[in-house]
C-alpha cells in the first residue's frame, strides 16, 4: 500500500513539474522533452489505475509518435527558442491568467469533491474484476460495442492525413500570388460600416 502511495506521489509530482516546465522555458525542444516526461509519468498513473494496456498505448502513441511529430516540426521550422516573440505581454496579464486558471482548477476540485462518486472502495479494492483493463477486454469492447465509433475514428484519421497533406503542401502555381493578410502587428482599425 505504501509503495502504491509513493509511486503515486512521485509520478504525480513529476507529471506536474514537467507540465509546468513545458512553457516555463524558451527552448521548444526542451518543452517537447518535458511533455514526454509528463506523459511518461501519467502512463505510470494509468498503470496504477489498472490500465496497463492504455498506459502502453499512451507511451507508444503519444510519447512515441505524436511528440516525435512535434519534434520533427520544430526541427523543420528550425526553431531554437531564440525567435522574436514580440513584446512580452502586459505585466499584469500573465499573473491574471494564472490566477484565473487556478481559480478554475480550484473550482473543478470543488466540483469533483461534490461529485457523487461511488464509495471510494467499491469497485477497486473489494472485488476487482479480473478482466478489468486487460487487452482482451479492451479489444472485445472496441470491436463489439464500440465498433461504429471505431470505424468513424478510422475515417477521421484518414481525413486528418489528407488535410495535413493538403495544408502543408506548397502553392503549386507561382503566378498566383500568395494570399497574405497584412493585419499582423499594429491595431489596424477595421473599416466600420455605419448603419443609418
Amino acid at each position, binding site marked *: 500500500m505504501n509503495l502504491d502511495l509513493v509511486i*503515486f506521489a512521485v509520478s504525480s509530482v513529476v507529471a506536474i513539474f514537467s507540465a509546468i516546465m513545458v512553457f516555463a522555458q524558451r527552448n521548444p525542444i526542451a518543452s517537447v522533452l518535458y511533455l514526454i516526461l509528463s506523459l511518461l509519468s*501519467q502512463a505510470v498513473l*494509468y498503470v496504477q489505475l489498472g490500465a496497463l494496456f492504455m498506459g502502453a498505448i499512451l507511451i507508444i502513441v503519444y510519447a512515441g509518435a505524436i511528440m516525435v511529430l512535434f519534434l520533427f516540426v520544430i526541427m523543420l521550422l528550425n526553431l531554437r527558442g531564440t*525567435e522574436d516573440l*514580440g513584446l512580452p505581454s502586459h505585466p499584469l496579464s500573465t499573473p491574471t491568467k494564472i490566477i484565473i*486558471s487556478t481559480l*478554475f482548477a480550484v473550482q473543478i476540485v470543488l466540483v469533483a469533491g461534490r461529485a457523487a462518486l461511488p464509495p471510494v472502495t467499491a469497485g477497486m479494492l473489494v472485488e476487482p474484476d479480473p478482466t478489468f483493463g486487460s487487452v482482451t477486454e479492451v479489444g472485445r469492447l472496441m470491436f463489439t460495442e464500440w465498433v461504429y465509433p471505431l470505424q468513424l475514428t478510422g475515417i*477521421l484519421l484518414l481525413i486528418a492525413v489528407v488535410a495535413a497533406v493538403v495544408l502543408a503542401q506548397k502553392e503549386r502555381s507561382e503566378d498566383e500570388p500568395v494570399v497574405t493578410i497584412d493585419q499582423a502587428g499594429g491595431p489596424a482599425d477595421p473599416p466600420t460600416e455605419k448603419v443609418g
Partner: protein
Amino acid sequence: MDPVAYVMVAVVLFAIGSVGVLISRNIIILFMSVELALNAANLVIMAFAKAHGVTDGHVIVFFMLTVAAAEAAVGLAMIITLFRNRGTINIDRFSLLKW
C-alpha cells in the same frame, strides 16, 4: 488509492495546460499545452473507469488518443503553413479572428 486523488492530479494538470495556452506566445508550445490539457482529461476518464470498474472508459481514452493524433497532424500542418506564409510562430502576430 482513492481515484479522487488521480482526479485531483488531472485537474492540476488541466489548469497548467490552460495556463500554458493563455500565456505562451510560441504557437508550438501553446499547442503542446493543449495536448497537456487533453491528456488531463484522459486521466480523469481513467480514474472514473477505475472507480466504476468498467473498461469502456479505456476505449474512450483510446479514441481520444486517436483524435489527438489527428488533431496534432492537422494542427502541425497548419503551423507549418502559417510559418511558411508569415515567417513567425508568434501567436500575437496573428489576428485573423476578427472581421
